[in-house]
């Protein structure tokens, strides 16, 4: 249909797992030197498709054909696909923290003669690659000493060192702040102008609009359509992903705001290891009953640290300041006390801080409120099961059974389990840290609806988010943080991306 040459064609790919058809007759055509986005809800089959392409699922375990540069490919493992120049960068970066940038770039591909590494060549080649991706770091810097954004660039440098022809990025900006995302996307566009093809899996529709030449939408394991860049609108993509048009991305709500019930005064905390570094500086904030309050700020502005230090001092050292609930001062020296005082904190990293992946759904939901299902410390298993079932229905957790291991669920469903856990603790104040990160549009809407419902019950909600549209769409009032301080307080009526951005980048308000 086009004159440009097709670099990759995947024809009628079908991949079955015991019991489920993960991919059903999926077709994908990628034009040379374009950025091709793949969109779909969590669990739609995007990652599975990429695993088929890169040989993680070897030839023979799926049906259909892969044509790369018009050659039929039958990859037995990742090595074979990499030899052809197909390199995949996974969402969870595969770098070794204790090794240097240069060592990581050439890991598995060491610059060596007869097994003896030539360090000079390694470092100098690494330096060239770092220049190419625009990363100003010494090749000898350890990975653990640079941020996630820079690590992402190292991954790309590593891919370039393998002579990459087709670069696949799985949600590359999910963990990045605005600046780093911007950088990364610019780099991708620059590499495109040098003739590289990339496939990018992303949930961030504005990014896709910005960089992609075409978008393939996958829903329930089937490829729905491929749209050209000229015709891409966010609504169109959403439409294709969920199979219906979401007229409003944020559910309607009539705020019913009561009086102030939660106050934080003169709150400060210091870095747990670097004693001199003050992370949160003299913060004052208050939350009213039934109010949804946002905290906007760039990553590293102290948002998470503020929330965690309030939540039973689970972050920081030398924490000072007062917390009042209903006018009474609270002494929240540990998490148990915070929970007992009706505070809940949903962490930004659900796998690391929110869930016990090897345990099942019901055990995760009950963990923070075991007293409620126990008599004299003896747990009533049946009651636990009933509670979990209740939340499964209420929160629409998609799983055959609450005895399913949480690790087997998709991101959106995992997040619903974390939310269930904290709703079951019946908090008065619910702190949500990036509640919709890495979650598809449909699940996002469901989580927003739950937030509204909790607010309508008179609970206070504090939302931390990097996505400004989300903050503006959901919150009655927004605090903006920058470098550990609150630099602005904005009412819903005045909240625009420009205003928030101004405060976010403002070091002294």
């Amino acid at each position, binding site marked *: 249909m086009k004159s440009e040459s097709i670099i990759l064609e995947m024809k009628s790919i079908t991949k079955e797992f015991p019991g489920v058809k993960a991919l059903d007759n999926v077709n994908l055509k990628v034009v040379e030197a374009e950025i091709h986005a793949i969109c779909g809800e969590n669990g739609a089959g995007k990652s599975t498709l990429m695993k088929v392409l890169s040989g993680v699922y070897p030839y023979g375990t799926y049906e259909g054909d892969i044509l790369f540069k018009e050659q039929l490919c039958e990859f037995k493992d990742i090595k074979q696909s990499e030899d052809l120049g197909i390199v995949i960068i996974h969402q969870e970066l595969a770098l070794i923290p204790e090794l240097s940038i240069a060592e990581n770039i050439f890991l598995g591909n060491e610059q060596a003669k007869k097994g003896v590494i030539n360090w000079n060549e390694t470092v100098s080649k690494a330096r060239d690659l770092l220049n190419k991706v625009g990363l100003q770091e010494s090749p000898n810097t350890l990975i653990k000493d640079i941020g996630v954004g820079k690590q992402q660039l190292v991954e790309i440098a590593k891919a370039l060192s393998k002579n990459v022809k087709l670069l696949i990025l799985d949600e590359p900006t999910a963990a990045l702040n605005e600046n780093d995302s911007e950088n990364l996307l610019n780099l991708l566009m620059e590499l495109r102008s040098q003739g590289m093809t990339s496939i990018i899996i992303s949930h961030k529709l504005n990014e896709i609009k910005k960089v992609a030449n075409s978008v393939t939408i996958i829903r329930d394991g089937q490829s729905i359509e491929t749209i050209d860049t000229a015709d891409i609108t966010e609504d169109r993509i959403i439409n294709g992903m969920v199979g219906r048009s979401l007229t409003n991305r944020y559910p309607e709500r009539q705020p019913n705001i009561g009086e102030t019930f939660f106050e934080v005064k003169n709150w400060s905390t210091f870095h747990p290891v670097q004693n001199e570094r003050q992370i949160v500086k003299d913060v004052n904030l208050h939350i009213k009953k039934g109010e949804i309050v946002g905290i906007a700020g760039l990553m590293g502005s102290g948002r998470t640290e503020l929330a965690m230090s309030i*939540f*039973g001092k*689970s972050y920081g050292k030398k924490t000072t300041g007062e917390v009042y609930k209903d006018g009474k001062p609270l002494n929240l020296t*540990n*998490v*148990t006390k*915070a*929970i007992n005082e009706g505070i809940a*904190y949903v*962490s930004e990293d659900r796998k*690391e*801080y*929110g*869930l*016990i*992946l*090897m*345990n099942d759904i019901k*055990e995760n939901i*009950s*963990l*923070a409120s*075991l*007293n409620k299902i*126990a008599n004299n*410390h*003896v*747990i009533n*298993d*049946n009651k636990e*099961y*009933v509670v979990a079932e209740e939340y499964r229905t209420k929160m629409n957790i998609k799983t055959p059974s609450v005895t399913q291991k949480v690790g087997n669920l998709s991101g959106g469903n995992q997040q619903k389990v974390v939310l269930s*856990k904290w709703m079951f603790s019946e908090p008065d104040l619910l702190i949500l840290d990036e509640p919709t990160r890495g979650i598809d549009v449909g699940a996002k809407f469901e989580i927003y609806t739950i937030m509204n419902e909790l607010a309508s019950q008179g609970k206070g909600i504090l939302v931390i988010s990097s996505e400004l549209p989300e903050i503006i769409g959901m919150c009655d009032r927004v605090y903006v943080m920058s470098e550990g301080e609150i630099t602005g307080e904005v009412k819903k009526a005045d909240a625009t991306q420009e205003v928030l951005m101004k405060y976010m980048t403002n070091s002294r308000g």
Partner: protein
Amino acid sequence: MNSITTLLKKNLKQSSMVIALVLITLLFQVLTDGTLLKPLNITNLILQNSYILILAVGMVLVIITGHIDLSVGSVAAFIGAISAILMINMQMNPVLAVIICLAAGALIGAWQGFWVAYVGIPAFIVTLAGMLLFRGLTLVVLQGQSIAPYPESFQKLSNGFLPDLFGGTDIHIFSIVIGVAVSLILIGLEINGRNNQLRYNFEVGSKGLFYAKLVAIFAVVNTFTYVLATYRGLPNILVILFVIIVAYTFVMKKTIIGRHVYAVGGNLKAASLSGVQTKKVTFGVFVNMGVLAALSGLIFAARLNAATPRAGNLFELDAIAAVFIGGASAYGGVGTVVGAVIGGLVMGVMNNGMSILGLGIDWQQAIKGLVLLAAVAFDIINKKKS
């Protein structure tokens, strides 16, 4: 038939260990021409393995929290030495001495738990240091020599049997009564559990299968006690073991404390942010290990009727092996008390069977090593499949 296979598949991991134990037992039963399951030998088996099984129960908790304890053998020896000083040199009342020894065990556990939980030193290092420290202290206390003999009442801890309240002559009637009682209680619990599930409208297995299970429970428990009754009845140590296994299974499966132990091993950070006092839990698990190591040391000393400097040598490795054979994960968060006990029994039956066959200690060691590797490999390969 269909429901049986699904039931087996569901519980493959647990049932595979039981099946392995049964197969190994049958194998040695045949190889030893029936000596293995003679009443006398079963009694011996229990006495020989009791101290390892008690250590394994403590160890499985430590391993579930994601730690390890290398010091238990040395701690057992050290406590044995203290008990000898108290009871033999100082002529102290055995009951009082046992209480002091268990308290000393708790103190040792608290010492190690402090370094692991509150200072954050890896348990491997803390308990490696403990292994050397308490072995050394044992030698100091005993001045390099064995102390014997213990008062008779203390020896009963390991070598005694329940008295027959009904005065049976050829057969120990009281043991049979206990067997019937225990099996009836177990059956009652099963029925109660099923009724509870029905009350909550849960799906339960078919009735036929359920009755078959009840009959099996009755048969197994009573056959076991009957066989023991034809010798000298139930050993005291079996009663202690039974109480410990039941109590710890209950705590780990049914109580908040148990859930917290699993949570700490499953994901320390998530547990801590869910209000689990992770440091206290870790500390408590080590204190508990200390007490059980002390108990194990006392039982060993009573059985040997002497406190010796080399007591408890390599016990820690037997206990750790039992826990891993019993299906615990080296990464924490997974494991059961019953699994650890079954793991311990697998090793115990092999030891005993090979000894009866006259196999040297050299070959026994080698074969045990291979069995440990095979058991864990089987487990991991199975997991990959599912």
